């Protein structure tokens, strides 16, 4: 199922998303394609043979041998600052994947979908939104929690997609600083936010929740408390280093 080879991949483009998040477009050899929600291992090798590898969510649909990842720069991180700041066009890394077969959305799925993102947890969910746009009419709702407007990744594209597509609703939750005209005061995501912008449990949506551990724990508990079935809630947490 997972082919084990590391594939060389060269950076072909980079795009800043926020002050701390950067999208890297990599050209791999013989990429087998992937599902939205899957991730890839990235391996860096130093000149003396020292290696470091990390997993990153894939941000965009299969496009030949091109793979997009969005890297959130972690202070004192070993790999993310290098990828976000130093890796230059034509520089090479190695990739392995695609990986993960659980936190995925398949275009054959017909049911409503609720996506709940915290911070850079938007990345695998954005891949689902981008794939859906060309392949499915399943209704999607996204609730995206960020600290401040400046921390929104893919903000312009999300605004455009939701304006053009009646099947995609996007709601923002700002935890520290809200935009001036936002009637919602800044604060953590609440059950009211989920009720206002999610799906009622009896619509039987599949829910994908991705973000830091505390965020995911809290959202998943709220979903259960409002009657969503545990078997339809899929989570991906990132924590620690």
């Amino acid at each position, binding site marked *: 199922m997972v082919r*084990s080879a590391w594939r060389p991949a060269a950076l072909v483009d980079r795009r800043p998303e926020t002050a701390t998040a950067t999208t890297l477009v990599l050209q791999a050899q013989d990429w087998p394609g992937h599902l939205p929600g899957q991730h890839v291992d990235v*391996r860096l090798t*130093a000149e003396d043979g020292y290696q470091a590898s*990390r997993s990153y969510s894939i941000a965009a649909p299969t496009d030949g041998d091109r793979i997009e990842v969005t890297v959130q720069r972690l202070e004192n991180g*070993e790999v993310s600052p290098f990828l976000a700041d130093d890796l*230059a066009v034509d520089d090479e890394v190695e990739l392995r994947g695609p990986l993960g077969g*659980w936190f995925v959305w398949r275009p054959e799925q017909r049911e409503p979908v609720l996506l709940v993102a915290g911070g850079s947890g938007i990345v695998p969910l954005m891949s689902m939104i981008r794939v859906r746009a060309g392949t499915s009419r399943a209704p999607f709702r996204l609730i995206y929690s960020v600290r401040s407007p400046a921390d929104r990744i893919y903000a312009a594209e999300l605004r455009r997609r939701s304006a053009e597509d009646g099947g995609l609703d996007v709601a923002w939750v700002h935890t520290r600083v809200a935009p001036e005209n936002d009637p919602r005061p800044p604060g953590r995501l609440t059950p009211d936010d989920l009720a206002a912008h999610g799906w009622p449990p009896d619509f039987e949506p599949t829910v994908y929740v991705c973000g830091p*551990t505390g965020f995911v724990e809290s959202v998943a508990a709220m979903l259960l408390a409002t009657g969503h079935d545990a078997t339809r809630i899929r*989570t991906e947490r990132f*924590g620690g280093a």
Partner: protein
Amino acid sequence: MPIITRGFRGHRSGDDERLPPGQYLTHDFPVLSTGPTPLIPPEEWSFTVTTETGVRHEWSWTDLMTLPAEEVTVDLHCVTRWSKLDTAWRGVSLDVLLEDVETVADYALVHSHGGYTTNLPLEDLLDGQAWVAFEYDGDALTSEHGGPARLLVPHLYLWKSAKWVRGIDLLLEDDPGFWEQLGYHEYGDPWREQRYQGD
């Protein structure tokens, strides 16, 4: 030959000899689960071993507390590449739980509350290699880390250490668990870097 990434140097920690290949050191305790965290009160928790002939051995929480527990300090290695050294646990050895279980099975399929499963050879649960753990770092195990009790099999990648453990089926033939059906390695030895099928 791996490709050299121009300009990459990396950070190097002093504990490299205790890190399996491809792992990095963390001092946090990250949480990885596929769904919501089940909240299981200890009085509703039980642990059942079912043999290949269908014989069931069941322990309630109270039963578990009366068994001899051990304190163990072990290193954890997660397939998502973090390792955490010197973690302190308290739990009941599987040697104790399986002592009176008659079986000729070679395989085990571990079940959790919430539906998660993982498989491993029965011999990897024996001889001081595995515990049903209920304390971490001196405190009751929190639900997000698998409380009230989880399996602890630290010599394999951490997905084998099933959180919210509720039972083990002993089997004559191997039966792949949740991640093992999704492309992850059958056995998962971190020192041989058995992350994915075919490693």
